[in-house]
């Protein structure tokens, strides 16, 4: 069923239509928030808050635009609000070592051979991601996990396309630098 039709049905009072929207977007929304706040159970709570906000404001949704962009925007703002409320920010990405500095101080082998190494690199990436600013984590997730264009990212975050491109570029460079500092040689 198309997005516009689902939205129209949800606006007409069909909760089953909104349930379909939740099912369709829960994974990307939780992923985005989890990457931003670094706590999976908090991310689920915030994702729930995101969907409740979306439900309450569905009438304000412009059906000529993409529903996913609108939901990502609400999710981003919800996560940013949560981060602002919980200073100092929660930064302990799932499965990552509690202290990112530990990662930086322990020399690690370059990515090699087996699934353990693959997992180690994955964890190192997550740990380094956790050291980026929330806005940078957000653009990285939208770009590389949700495969969005820079234009779409810009629309979601309310910034020009060129700025979104520059944010992603800087965040990726920073990630590369952090990995190098953690001993993951090129």
């Amino acid at each position, binding site marked *: 069923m198309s997005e516009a039709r689902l939205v129209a049905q949800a606006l007409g009072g069909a909760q089953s239509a909104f349930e379909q929207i*939740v099912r369709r977007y829960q*994974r990307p929304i*939780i992923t985005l928030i989890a990457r931003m706040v670094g706590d*999976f159970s908090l991310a689920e709570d915030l994702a729930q808050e995101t969907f*409740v906000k979306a*439900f309450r404001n569905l009438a304000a949704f412009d059906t000529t635009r993409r529903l996913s962009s609108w939901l990502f925007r609400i999710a981003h703002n919800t996560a940013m609000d949560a981060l602002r409320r919980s200073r100092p920010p929660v930064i302990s990405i799932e499965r990552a070592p509690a202290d990112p500095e530990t990662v930086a101080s322990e020399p690690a082998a370059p990515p*090699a051979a087996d699934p353990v190494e693959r997992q180690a*690199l994955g964890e190192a990436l997550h740990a380094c991601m956790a050291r980026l600013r929330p806005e940078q984590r957000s653009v990285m997730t939208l770009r590389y*996990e949700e495969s969005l264009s820079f234009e779409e990212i810009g629309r979601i975050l309310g910034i020009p396309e060129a700025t979104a491109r520059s944010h992603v570029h800087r965040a990726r460079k920073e990630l*590369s630098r952090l990995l190098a500092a953690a001993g993951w040689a090129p």
Partner: protein
Amino acid sequence: MTEDLTRIYRRWRAAEASERDEDADGAYRELLAVVAPEPRVAADFTVRTMKAITVAAAQDVRRARRTRRVLVTGGALGLATAVYFGGGVAVSLLSAALLGLLNALIGAVVGMASGAQTGAGFWSVLGGVGRAISAFVSNPAVTVAMVALQGIAIAALFALQRLLGANERSE
């Protein structure tokens, strides 16, 4: 696969080091697909979310009813108070305005008639009518009545809009 991982990782880092943005973009995407699994969503997430939405919707309905009740009660009380305390003033203002309007009309008619009788030109007749209208508008009682009427209209529109909004949310 693991050799691929090494290759992709090196390609990304090399592209990053040599400022090849497009290559780095593609390589990092590939790398992430290999090493970073997506978080698993709890099986009951949808059910929990829909329950939260049902609760939120019920809260909205209650809030809308409360708002409507407060507005209706407040509006009725406000109206009664306004009528009780301001009734006399309003009647005197409205009658002054009505009187002023009648005077203006009479002045305009008399001006036109005398103008026609004395053979005055179109512009002098129009000037007479204008004088009658300006005398009406510059009357302080009329001005106050007009401002009061506008205030009442704005308040009524605002209340109506809030009532309709509350009604919409409760449906």
